[in-house]
């Protein structure tokens, strides 16, 4: 009972609610797959998958800009038969795909999703950290989790009893080992500057000084390249290089087992982009505004946030309007049903604009923490902390989505490296650059900071 009574109920509620952040990488899969497919299409001057639709009675077809295609593919994978080839190690074969996917739920635990919430609850001062586990070894935990996911690939490759999967697994393991080193070493510079392994401390250091990308630009590039290599995506996808290894370690997998590998890969991208955003792009910190300033003008900040969202909704409406006009001018036989679908989106868009504008106006004029109370219980500081957390979270999401886009962008631009080139790049170039960067950073930090 003591442990329960050591905290107020609001602390418990928020602490438990924070576990929902474990599902963020899974939600990112839903975002990343359409982004990858349509993005790949656009980069190759194609349209990308856009033909699947849901038929709604008395309305028409809903295509959601091609999003329905991903639902169809997911459903197909889900309902396919799970099979195992003859001669496989049954236990490991079935366990292997679950490993990278299970790691996905662990990794988000140490990422600070928002700055520590500090507020007064009654007469008690409450401080709730932004990460699920506010650990002093946060970065190390995260690196440990992300290298654990290589076990999935290695076990899958070994258990499948096929030379292609085996070679793919070998390549994955060697790549993971080589690039983990680069990853860790390029990380050290920023850790040295911040003087802590705690991700929240690193972010607050960046908030008070400069962003990691400014302080450590070389380390940023090394880290970006190493983490792209670590996720095993192009141009470093030698582990599943189609011309050589069929599909690498998941050659023998089908149905949802393959789907788990696929989702694990995307969640890994998500985690790594959150990590990069946290370490080098100021994490949840809003650019050019300190948290104190934001909290002092909470109403205005929320109003600006609503304004940005309303602007985005207007931009969406503009694109819709523009494309509807172009489509109406063509002779395509399905233009009227597409236009009708767009009409629905336009209604939604205008509703969103109205809602955001009203919310923004309310925040601007009515948000006053001094006289916010429920039944005489002051919640002004809690409301401010909650608003700060919301803005922090959205800022972090925007930054990480930007990096997710970098992953997709790089994949569809650069050709695959040859295997020995990958090793050469890892051990002889990036490792050395990271080491030199670390030494230089240490010397400068000693000379300037003097600690």
């Amino acid at each position, binding site marked *: 009972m003591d442990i329960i009574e050591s905290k107020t109920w609001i602390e418990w509620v928020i602490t438990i609610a924070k576990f929902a952040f474990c599902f963020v990488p899974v939600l990112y899969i839903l975002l990343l797959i359409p982004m990858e497919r349509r993005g790949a299409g656009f980069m*190759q001057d194609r349209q990308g998958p856009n033909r699947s639709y849901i038929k709604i009675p008395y309305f028409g077809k809903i295509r959601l800009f091609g999003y329905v295609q991903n639902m169809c593919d997911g459903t197909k994978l889900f309902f396919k038969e799970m099979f195992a080839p003859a001669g496989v190690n049954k236990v490991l074969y079935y366990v292997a795909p679950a490993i990278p996917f299970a790691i996905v739920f662990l990794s988000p635990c140490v990422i600070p999703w928002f700055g520590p919430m500090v507020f007064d609850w009654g007469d008690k001062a409450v401080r709730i950290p932004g990460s699920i586990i506010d650990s002093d070894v946060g970065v190390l935990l995260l690196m440990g989790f992300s290298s654990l996911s290589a076990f999935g690939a290695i076990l899958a490759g070994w258990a499948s009893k096929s030379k292609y999967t085996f070679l793919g697994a070998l390549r994955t393991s060697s790549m993971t080992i080589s690039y983990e080193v680069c990853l860790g070493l390029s990380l050290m510079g920023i850790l040295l500057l911040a003087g802590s392994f705690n991700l929240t401390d690193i972010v607050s250091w960046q908030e008070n000084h400069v962003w990691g990308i400014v302080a450590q630009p070389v380390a940023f590039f090394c880290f970006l390249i190493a983490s792209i290599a670590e996720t095993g995506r192009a141009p470093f996808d030698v582990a599943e290089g189609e011309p050589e290894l069929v599909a690498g370690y998941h050659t023998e997998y089908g149905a949802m087992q393959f789907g788990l590998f696929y989702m694990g890969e995307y969640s890994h991208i998500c985690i790594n982009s959150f990590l990069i955003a946290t370490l080098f792009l100021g994490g949840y910190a809003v650019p050019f505004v300190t948290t104190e300033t934001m909290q002092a003008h909470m109403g205005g900040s929320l109003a600006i946030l609503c304004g940005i969202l309303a602007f985005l909704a207007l931009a969406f409406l503009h694109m819709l309007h523009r494309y509807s006009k172009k489509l109406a001018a063509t002779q395509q036989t399905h233009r009227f049903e597409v236009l009708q679908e767009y009409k629905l989106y336009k209604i939604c868009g205008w509703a969103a604009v109205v809602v955001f504008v009203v919310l923004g106006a309310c925040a601007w004029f009515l948000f006053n923490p001094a006289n916010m109370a429920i039944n005489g219980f002051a919640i002004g500081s809690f409301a401010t902390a909650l608003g700060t957390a919301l803005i922090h979270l959205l800022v972090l999401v925007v930054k990480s989505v930007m990096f997710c886009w970098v992953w997709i962008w790089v994949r569809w*631009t650069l050709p695959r490296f040859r295997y020995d080139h990958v090793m050469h790049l890892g051990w002889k170039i990036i490792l050395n650059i990271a080491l030199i960067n670390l030494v230089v950073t240490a010397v400068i930090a000693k000379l300037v900071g003097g600690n």
Partner: protein
Amino acid sequence: MARVIKQRPMNWIERLYIFECLRGLFTTLKHAARGLFRYETLPTISYPEGQPEIRHTYRAKHRLMLRPDGTPRCVACGMCAAACPAHCIFIEATQSDDPRIEKRVMRFDIDHLTCVFCGLCAEACPVDALRMDTKKIVFEHRTREEFVAHMSDLMDWDPKDYPEDAQSQMAPGGTKNKQALETWGMEVK
């Protein structure tokens, strides 16, 4: 003879690879932005809702040209069947009712499953009776028999679809049909 192409050696900026990577990334970013903001300029045609633009010189499904009175121009000489490399044209001739004309065609079948659309039949025709400018490029039927176009099918075309072509306008329903019919009738006497 083998030709040796001397490749320019890469300079040191290119050998660094990173700047060339950034150039490549910029190129793909331009294309992605085009897809996102200028979607309708993408070269893809959303077939079958949108149809590709076909020129009248494109070798599509055949048609039989008509005289002003509506009979086919074909004189059943068999040149097209002789020219056909795929042997997909089947012609049977019969006696013509018109005293000016020796033969008329009784059966004119083109098997579009065998046809290679080379256009030699249209080239070979001495009376310009066979053309391939219908712009119909899609053949979809249930049975093999339906892919064989018979004479009635080949003669079933509308002069309004060929507004530029004077020869087509002389067929029944065309703008020059009346005039052409007078000329045609005059020659009988």
